């Protein structure tokens, strides 16, 4: 009997090629078996695969189940039985990085990194200087191509996009609409020769807004949301303090209501009281607008305050990931234990 008797591949699977789906003939979608690496299928989240570093998942039936036998034959000891786990969360991921690798010379900046992000979730990437955090953020956001691996983005119409295979104009459109990027240095994002209000309005216009009064009104509203006085709307950013510039960058980024925002050390270089205000602002805006965020920070306290989940990086690898308070209060990896123990009141 051929190994695939009783099974068939889904012919028009949008993801075929990246992984194989085998469906038990005549059975419903809950019988889907997912093997290999790829973005989440409809019946399992990649989290299920990732939880134990699985390469193969087999749903239903035990080791004697014919489906499971084939999966085991193909993947051997990498196969795990899903029945011992809770039913997987079915909400598909917004962004998934799979098998990301990138080396600079001999430096492995990313080594087989897998990441998932769900809608409305804030994921913090922490780790020491040079561990690959910024590199990961740039790869996830399509700004830097990996040597290997794939980044998947699911658009509002539920279509998956291979971020690094997208045509450049499509990626630019994504960055202007669905996505936002908050840099450590706000000058990288702001236009210093344009007024504060113009900086906010410009993103709206890039999206197609035309009515001047509306744009100014929205800009004013956003300046107030980031606690910048309305009478500063016509001032140039160079007259702003560091904390104000950062808040202006956040207003400029969020004005288009992105679904996904990448932040690289947004509070770095600011003094502590200014940091607290900014963190509070990010916390409330993200929760209220249900924005998904990948936040890079070397500050454990920032991660603790803001993040639902945390990923700890060391030498280009994610060495530990999980619920923020779990990872920080009950760290398992030696490097995480070191990181946590070296911070007061982490």
């Amino acid at each position: 009997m051929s190994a695939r008797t009783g099974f068939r591949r889904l012919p028009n699977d949008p993801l075929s090629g990246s992984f194989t789906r085998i469906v038990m003939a005549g059975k419903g979608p809950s019988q889907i078996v997912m093997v290999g690496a790829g973005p989440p299928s409809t019946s399992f989240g990649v989290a299920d695969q990732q939880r134990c570093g699985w390469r193969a998942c087999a749903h239903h039936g035990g080791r004697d189940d014919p489906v499971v036998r084939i999966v085991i034959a193909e993947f051997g000891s990498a196969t795990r039985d899903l029945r011992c786990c809770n039913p997987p969360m079915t909400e598909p991921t917004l962004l998934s990085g799979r098998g990301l690798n990138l080396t600079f010379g001999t430096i492995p900046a990313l080594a087989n990194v897998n990441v998932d992000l769900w809608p409305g979730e804030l994921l913090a990437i922490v780790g020491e200087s040079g561990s690959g955090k910024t590199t990961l953020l740039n790869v996830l956001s399509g700004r830097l191509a990996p040597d290997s691996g794939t980044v998947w983005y699911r658009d509002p119409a539920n279509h998956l996009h291979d971020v690094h295979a997208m045509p450049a104009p499509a990626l630019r459109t994504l960055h202007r609409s669905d996505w936002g990027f908050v840099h450590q240095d706000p000058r990288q994002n702001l236009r210093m020769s344009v007024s504060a209000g113009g900086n906010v309005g410009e993103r709206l216009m890039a999206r197609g807004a035309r009515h001047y009064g509306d744009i100014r009104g929205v800009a004013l509203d956003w300046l107030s949301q980031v606690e910048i006085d309305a009478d500063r709307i016509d001032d140039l950013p160079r007259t702003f303090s560091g904390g104000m510039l950062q808040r202006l960058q956040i207003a400029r980024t969020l004005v288009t209501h992105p679904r996904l925002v990448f932040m690289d050390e947004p509070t770095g270089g600011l003094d502590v009281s200014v940091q607290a205000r900014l963190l509070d602002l990010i916390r409330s805006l993200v929760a209220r607008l249900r924005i998904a965020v990948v936040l890079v920070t070397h500050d454990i306290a920032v991660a603790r305050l803001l993040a639902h989940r945390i990923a700890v990086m060391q030498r280009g690898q994610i060495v530990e990931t999980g619920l923020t308070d779990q990872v920080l209060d009950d760290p398992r990896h030696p490097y995480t234990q070191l990181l946590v123990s070296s911070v007061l009141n982490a």
Partner: protein
Amino acid sequence: MTVMVRTRALAKSFTLHLRDGLVLPVLSGIDLEVANGECVVLSGPSGAGKSTLMRSLYGNYRAESGSILIRHGEEMIDIATADPRTILAVRHDTLGYVSQFLRVVPRVSALDVVAEVLLTRGIDQDAARSAARDLLLRLNIPSRLHAIPPATFSGGEQQRVNLARGFIARHPILLLDEPTASLDAENRAVVISMVLDAKKSGTAIVAICHDADVRDAIADRLFAMTPYQDAA
């Protein structure tokens, strides 16, 4: 009677990599069961693992083996194997936890610290704040403190803010770690009455309290724990 919490053969140890991989076994073979409307107090000497067990129930510490079933709506969820997002959902709807110390959030007023839980459930701001105000007043936190972030509060005041935060959402399961440790007699009595009210409304409660008066007033049962070495 409905079982709300059930652990089976729960075990937990810590591996201290910074101390040459020293393994510190803390829990083993823990079978705990708590029904709705019942208050079980974990008892045992310092270091017996009471807080460790409670944190494991909350998913804050990761179980090493065994299961931690928590009734979440119609389902029993195993916290020991649940993914992070499931744990967050269970905490949001089902599991309340009052830790020993309040973790303060910069710039957020005491009132909003307490009201926040309700806001995330879609209750409008006025209703949430008014419920928070009532609860803070019941715990003798005067109105003049409500608008101030609790960072500068006294230990006892912070603990009462923490209690208000824990009780306001009326979670079906409440975990209380030393809820009265830094409170005076008057405020201890308030906490006792809040626990009794919660029990009456069907809440399952797991508590740790060294204070014998409080324990006698709230406990239906004690769950005895011994330090690991003695148990082995």
